[in-house]
């Protein structure tokens, strides 16, 4: 019985030490690192894409932007996923202009990497 108590206390001590030695925010850093290791992705939520035939215009406009390597669109959600070249980024204004030139509107813009442009939400304009 005493031996079991010793083992349990050692396990508890090990867990406490492990927790104490783990830096705060490590999970966020891990996520950021994972993102840095993977491709840069911008997600643009587009309003008004009611058919693939008309959404083709959005594809044409977005694919021509500098730094865009690939593009995928999901009509049901209006989500355009732009995969960028290494270290590339696209300003929000250019994304919005491209979508509007195609006849649609942007609802949101989000990135999976640190960017000087930040996220965009049409509801608050930033």
């Amino acid at each position, binding site marked *: 019985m005493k031996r079991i108590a010793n083992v349990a206390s050692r396990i508890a001590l090990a867990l406490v030490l492990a927790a104490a030695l783990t830096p705060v925010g490590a999970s966020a850093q891990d996520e950021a690192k994972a993102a840095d290791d993977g491709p840069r992705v911008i997600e643009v939520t587009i309003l008004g894409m009611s058919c*693939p035939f008309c959404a*083709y215009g959005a594809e044409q406009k977005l694919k021509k932007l500098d730094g865009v390597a690939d593009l995928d*669109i999901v009509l049901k959600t209006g989500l355009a996923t732009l995969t960028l070249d290494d270290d590339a980024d696209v300003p929000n204004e250019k994304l919005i202009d491209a979508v509007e030139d195609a006849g649609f509107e942007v609802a949101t813009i989000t990135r999976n990497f640190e960017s000087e442009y930040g996220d965009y939400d049409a509801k608050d304009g930033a």
Partner: protein
Amino acid sequence: MPRTVPEAAKPAAPVDGSPGRIGRVARIAARTAVVLPASAGAQILSQPSRGAGTGGTLFHNPVFGLGPQTIWKGGFGMELQGAFTRRKGQLEQERLALHAELTYGITEDLSLTFAVPVAQRRTESGLAPGGGQIDRDATGVGDAVIRAKWRIFHEFSGATQYHAAVIGGVKLPVASSGAKPALGSGSTDYIGGATISRDGLRYYLWTSALVKVNGEAFQVRRGNEYRYDAAVGVRPVIPTYKGVDPLLLVEFNGVTAARTVANGASQPETVGTILAISPGFWLTHRNLALKGGVKIPFYQALGALESELKFTAVFAFEIHV
């Protein structure tokens, strides 16, 4: 003294198989002060919308009506459309045409379209009033149309769009009006109208109203045409971006024509209304589209000099680049 028009533009004899109607039309023709060009009387109401320069299947418009959809800024839309129309009135008439249409997006809200029947064949056959058989046909280009569409309103809600557009255009008489039968009206005509729609992943709704103000040719000014269309389109399945996207349509198409004026005299037997129902379809894959439909009249109230529309069938291929 009545003025004359080119022989080729004169109408054919009233023959529709109905002795009563033949006699009536013959009496009316005899009373008529001038001879109406073929394009002024018997054909005015029965032109397929494309032939009259008011229609167009481009870019998710209904097959026979019009919608407010515009192409993206800097985009080109090209379409080839085959159309076949059969009419019966004074003569049995058929028209087989291959239309070419090019649209350019000046902005995302303003598009410019040039359309022309690059090849058409018109035939007329039946009995002449004094006896004898008429069998004639003509082949050539049709009248060209330049029109602009300006999207003046749009509202988005998720994937759904609500938008409205105004349309203006001109039909240029580039086709031969002296052919037998005439391949063009010989007049410069103007088109104006408005259209609204609701576009969604599940279904579409359109409506449009247009007027075609006809110009004068050979001392004859054909009556203006008023077109009113409504359509609903339903998708059997929600589309995916890179998949094939089918859509089934049912359209209601109406046209009413005012009186033709010839040598200053109004011609009461040139008025009329045709109402039609038109099943159709779209099948699109990315930037390619196939579209088709058949316009079937269910109500026709026509003056004696007008021809009844039997049907119009349309099949079109379209590409956007």
